[in-house]
């Protein structure tokens, strides 16, 4: 390749990324928290912490506990709410030269729509990522994302109220994730991202109490990676829209696994907590992998998984 650098840019159709590495929502704050430790403009994108219409204080502690090769969290989607986000967080995001994805959630269709509408016209925001794992208050608290119809309705509502491309973030806590992926594709989603955390529980055997105040939490970290790779593989076969893969990526090899499985880009989550510089290392590792393999373009490996 005559020492020429491999192309890392990927095109999702609605958004071009300088490289396929995005920080996952809830693990990188609003970018600002990491500005002294990380060159934020090096990133392919930043998915900021989940945003709701009103401020949300989050769950009582304990909110996190480490589990084998992973962690359980029940933060409770703490965030400052739409108004404070626009006033206090957007000005910093506007200074960055990377793609900004705003993760949004609601407890009703109206709330999803209201957050999407509130973010209209903010140029610094390149896309919305819709968290459909929230309980549907109007329908008995079942998560929107566990049912294809409610998943589709949330997608339609956000698309109708927003002027941004819409990525739907899928929950793995379903019988067949492909059914949900197809439903949101049909509803008009521009992309899907997966997987959100797996529901889990950990109990202190001395006290007999769950380790988290919330009883259950979302499991993330390397422990869930094989599950995530499988689901990304399944969904990439089932839909035409781009798939963004995530779940336990801590180094470039893990990220490559997702790309080969069919993801067009990846998100890195829990690893940011452990090693703030991890995304830059993953980007460099990908470059080196392509150089050694003499592959000129990262797009050349996407979805190339062979049947055994």
């Amino acid at each position, binding site marked *: 390749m005559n020492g020429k650098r491999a192309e890392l840019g990927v095109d999702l159709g609605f958004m071009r990324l300088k490289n396929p590495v995005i920080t996952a929502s809830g693990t990188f704050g609003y970018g600002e928290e990491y500005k002294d430790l990380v060159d934020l403009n090096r990133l392919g994108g930043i998915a900021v912490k989940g945003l709701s219409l009103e401020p949300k204080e989050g769950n009582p502690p304990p909110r996190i506990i480490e589990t084998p090769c992973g962690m359980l969290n029940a933060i409770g989607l703490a965030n400052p709410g739409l108004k404070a986000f626009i006033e206090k967080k957007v000005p910093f995001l506007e200074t960055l030269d990377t793609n900004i994805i705003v993760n949004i959630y609601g407890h009703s269709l109206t709330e999803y729509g209201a957050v999407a509408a509130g973010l209209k016209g903010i140029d610094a925001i390149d896309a919305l990522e819709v968290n459909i794992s929230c309980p549907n208050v109007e329908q008995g608290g079942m998560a929107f994302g566990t049912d294809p119809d409610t998943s589709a309705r949330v997608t339609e509502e956000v698309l109708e109220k927003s002027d941004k491309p819409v990525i739907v973030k899928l929950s793995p806590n379903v019988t067949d994730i492909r059914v949900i992926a197809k439903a949101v594709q049909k509803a008009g989603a521009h992309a899907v991202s997966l997987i959100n955390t797996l529901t889990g529980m950990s109990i202190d055997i001395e006290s007999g109490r769950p380790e988290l105040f919330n009883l259950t939490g979302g499991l993330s970290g390397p422990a869930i990676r094989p599950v995530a790779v499988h689901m990304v593989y399944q969904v990439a076969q089932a839909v035409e829209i781009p798939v963004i893969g995530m779940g336990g990526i801590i180094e470039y090899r893990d990220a490559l696994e997702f790309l080969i499985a069919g993801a067009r880009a990846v998100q890195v989550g*829990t690893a940011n907590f452990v090693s703030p510089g991890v995304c830059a290392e993953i980007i460099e590792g990908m470059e080196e992998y392509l150089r050694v393999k003499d592959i000129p373009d990262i797009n050349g490996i996407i979805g190339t998984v062979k049947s055994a």
Partner: protein
Amino acid sequence: MIEKDAGIVFNRKVAHATFLMGLNAPEIAGKAAPGQFVMLRVTKGIDPLLRRPFSISGVQGTDTLLILYRAVGRGTSIMSEKKEGESVSLLGPLGNGFDLEASKKKMILLAGGIGIAPLLFVAQRLEPASYRFMTGFRSKQEIIGADGTGIILNNNEISTDDGSFGRKGFVTDLLKGRIERDGPEGVCLFTCGPLLMLKNAVKIAAESRIPCQVSLEANMACGLGACQGCAVPASVAMNETYYHVCQDGPVFEMNQIDWDRI
């Protein structure tokens, strides 16, 4: 704040299951203030996965950061077996330390067990005549400071739960006795230790109208304000519902915290 691999200068046992580690980290040692902490990672592997917060126990010379710790779990057990010349990964210094301006009065440093860690750094920065150390341990074998930490504790009153050394009882009994004897006037309290002990200390301080700063700990993943895991309930008087130990603390004024809900 910076992230770096720091070489281990020494790592020695100073009491039962208790170790003092010296780390070559001039960039962190130079900036660190008493009460601040570092996020430390003992292995590059994925088990244990997350960093853990450790109070900074002091600075030796200009380059060496001191971490006093108890081996209680997998990570600290691996840490205790690390040898001189090996390294650990540090992220820090993090958080807000003690307000030493408040300490011009008659200072009491009240420590329960390994809660002595941040207070040793406070003592290092104070005039020896300006403070009194009160430390409580479960038993004689756990006492830190009496046995080769290299840190001299001035005016150190010691209690043990089982009476095997010093006064039998809790360290908060020492505090109560001191206030009853000398009165609360001009006294200022800095404290760190198990939650139950902190609650008792805060109760005594509130009743005696003594200003009190408390160093808290919480489960946390990042130490940077991103994970929001380390929430502690704010007192009703504050215009907040939760504080985050990593960014709002780890040192708080006692009246910032809702001690009934914590």
